[in-house]
């Protein structure tokens, strides 16, 4: 028996779960103009990052790739690029690549238009045109195999690995079996559990995928250790430690539970798209929310399922984020931020499978348009792009 959801079919064939006009500053210096446009025009969201100039070429390419991928993502129906005019990103390439998907994309240039107020006026006019153009599009019935779901855990405690991550693992397995795509990341939180993931790689631990898993973990660990400090000051976080997690190894072993049990098909770089790849994939990302949420939305994921124990409230501008809470005490305190209570598993009131089915049903509702708590509250202002080099 098949599962379906109601989505927006894009000209390139992809399917969105939301229908938004994205306002995309090509550089941090264009954020204020972009924010003014978003405040005025309903149906828009903004990607207000902090990158795009005075960075090494490697990072300028990462920023350009990520902004382009966000504009191409299926929850975005049209895009407005806000350029200052002197930035280091390739804003013309962003426009070309988004237009190549067949969706409307316009650009305004602040310096060329004569400054802030004129750019805001031009941007409001353009965003209004695009919102009116796309807002009449109807949802259509599509098979669940057209779903690409990202998964993550944040503000974790010891309930995460025993309840909420088990629920996400259940949903991930079910989606993979239904022909959908599931992507997880947080390479830092593979430390101590990488051998378990590598053994699940297609081709085994010694195949190219298994070896790549070891490689990305090694690179992440070396980056953290290059400063000559004990990582324990930053990972686990003080909140993780207060929640009972004593080491990065303990955090990792609980974190990887959310990936379920299916074979790992491959490892995506931070700037890769993974929409429709089918099966379970890893994306090489850090654990911090703004950077991983951005990387996952840029992958093309229509939705994220996010496990928490301490209570992480945030979402992402264009990607609904479903919060599964493993800690019954936290759920009691933060019900307006948490979308599902998996704490009942810790209390012995329900099984992982029962709560997993509840999470799957909620996922379908959210894909069909039901807002998550962070969407309804507009709690999605923080996003950023994971860069490797210094600001220069």
């Amino acid at each position: 028996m098949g599962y379906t959801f109601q989505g927006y079919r894009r000209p390139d064939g992809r399917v969105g779960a939301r229908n938004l006009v994205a306002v995309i500053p090509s550089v941090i210096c264009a954020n204020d103009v972009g924010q003014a446009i978003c405040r005025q025009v309903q149906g828009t969201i903004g990607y207000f990052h902090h990158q795009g100039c005075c960075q090494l070429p490697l990072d300028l390419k990462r920023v350009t790739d990520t902004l382009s991928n966000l504009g191409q993502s299926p929850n975005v129906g049209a895009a407005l690029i806000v350029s200052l005019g002197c930035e280091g990103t390739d804003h013309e390439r962003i426009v070309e690549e988004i237009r190549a998907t067949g969706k409307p994309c316009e650009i305004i240039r602040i310096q060329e238009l004569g400054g802030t107020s004129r750019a805001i006026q031009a941007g409001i006019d353009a965003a209004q045109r695009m919102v009116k153009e796309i807002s009449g599009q109807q949802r259509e019935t599509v098979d669940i195999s057209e779903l690409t779901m990202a998964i993550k855990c944040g503000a974790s405690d010891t309930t995460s690995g025993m309840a909420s991550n088990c629920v996400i693992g259940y949903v991930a397995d079910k989606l993979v079996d239904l022909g959908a795509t599931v992507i997880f990341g947080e390479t830092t939180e593979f430390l101590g559990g990488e051998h378990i993931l590598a053994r699940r790689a297609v081709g085994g631990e010694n195949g190219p995928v298994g070896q790549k898993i070891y490689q990305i973990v090694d690179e992440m660990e070396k980056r953290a250790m290059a400063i000559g400090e004990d990582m324990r000051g930053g990972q686990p976080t003080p909140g993780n430690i207060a929640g009972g997690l004593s080491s990065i190894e303990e955090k990792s072993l609980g974190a990887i539970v959310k990936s379920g049990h299916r074979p790992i098909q491959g490892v995506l770089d931070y700037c890769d798209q993974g929409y429709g790849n089918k099966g379970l994939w890893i994306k090489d990302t850090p654990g911090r929310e703004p950077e991983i949420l951005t990387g996952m939305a840029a992958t093309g994921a229509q939705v994220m399922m996010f496990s928490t124990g301490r209570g992480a409230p945030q979402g992402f501008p264009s990607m609904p984020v479903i919060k599964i809470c493993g800690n019954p005490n936290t759920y009691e305190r933060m019900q307006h931020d948490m979308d599902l209570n998996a704490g009942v598993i810790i209390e012995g009131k329900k099984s992982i499978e029962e709560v997993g089915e509840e999470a799957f049903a909620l996922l379908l509702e959210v894909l069909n348009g039901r807002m998550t708590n962070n969407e309804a509250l507009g709690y999605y202002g923080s996003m950023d792009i994971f860069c490797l080099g210094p600001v220069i």
Partner: protein
Amino acid sequence: MDVKLALRVDDLDNVATVFANEVKAGDEIEIRDKRGHLDPVIVHSDVPYGHKIAVVDIPKGAHIMKYGESIGEADVDIKRGDYVHVHNMKALRGRGDLGK
């Protein structure tokens, strides 16, 4: 009064995670393994919700085991019923400080 539970995830584990509020020194905790077998133990100090206790004696330098895997090593000799956390165990990964 409700039974205060600690969960031992894997048979190789030498710690269990306490899922009960306001556990005080001298309280009896039921350690439950994955088959549902119960093993009562007296805890030697207050243990916050979601934190760990030792299921067996763990000598200094031995691995702390959870999920059937190492999550670090004991910094001191740990007794059955002791609270186990960053004060008496340490991570072995991401330790840039050890390379100095």
